[in-house]
């Protein structure tokens, strides 16, 4: 297994290891947004550690001290993975935007209907989105970004497995 493939594995494992527990917590407790910083620090530490181990385990780096540069196969696999990741991210962002565009007015109409009197008079109401719901929506959008990253590294690994290892 080459350096680039090991790096892709390291990134995938680190992202899954950090963000699966992260989202498990924040979707139950949406106010725990401070965990974002903790997760980012843990991810940085894990990636640094993985990279060091990967560098030590790679013979060419031990010999020359240089990280092997990307060659044309690496770049092709990266482009394919980036394309898939872009599609995933676009679907998530589009889906999230559609839900927001139709969901927020629907919520407003529902509040107006609930506030209206039996004879159909609609009083002046203060329309608002609960903080918890807004934070959950933000967490969902961020989850989409993380899923797009998982798709990127997953596709990269599948590409290496298929092309380089048969």
């Amino acid at each position, binding site marked *: 297994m*080459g350096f680039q493939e090991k790096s892709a594995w390291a990134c995938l494992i680190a992202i899954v290891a950090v963000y699966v527990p992260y989202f498990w917590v924040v979707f139950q407790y949406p106010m725990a947004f401070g965990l974002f910083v903790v997760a980012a620090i843990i991810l940085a530490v894990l990636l640094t550690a993985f990279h060091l181990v990967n560098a030590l385990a790679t013979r060419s780096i031990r010999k020359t001290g240089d990280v092997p540069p990307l*060659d044309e196969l690496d770049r092709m696999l990266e482009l394919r993975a980036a394309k898939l990741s872009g599609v995933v991210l676009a679907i998530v962002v589009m889906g999230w935007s559609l839900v927001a565009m139709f969901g927020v007015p629907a919520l407003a109409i529902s509040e107006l209907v609930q506030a209206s009197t039996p004879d159909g008079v609609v009083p002046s109401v203060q329309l608002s989105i609960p903080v918890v719901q807004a934070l959950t929506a933000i967490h969902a959008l961020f989850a989409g970004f993380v899923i797009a990253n998982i798709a990127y590294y997953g596709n990269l690994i599948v590409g290496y497995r298929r092309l380089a290892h048969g």
Partner: protein
Amino acid sequence: MGKVAIHNRIRELRFKAGEMTQQTLADSVGITRQTVIALEKGKYYPSLELAFRIAQKFGMPLEEVFQFEG
């Protein structure tokens, strides 16, 4: 258009060139060993530039190393 196949003799030529290792060939043409493996298995078709560099490494014309079967 049907499926295109480009065959190559990289593995054979490596052995004829004093049992050159995949790593040696990779280092000399600026690619990784994984790419040499993919090329030899026919799972990856190189760019024109890389194909020329590989042919140059074996001291042969391009068509002696890569054969096109359309």
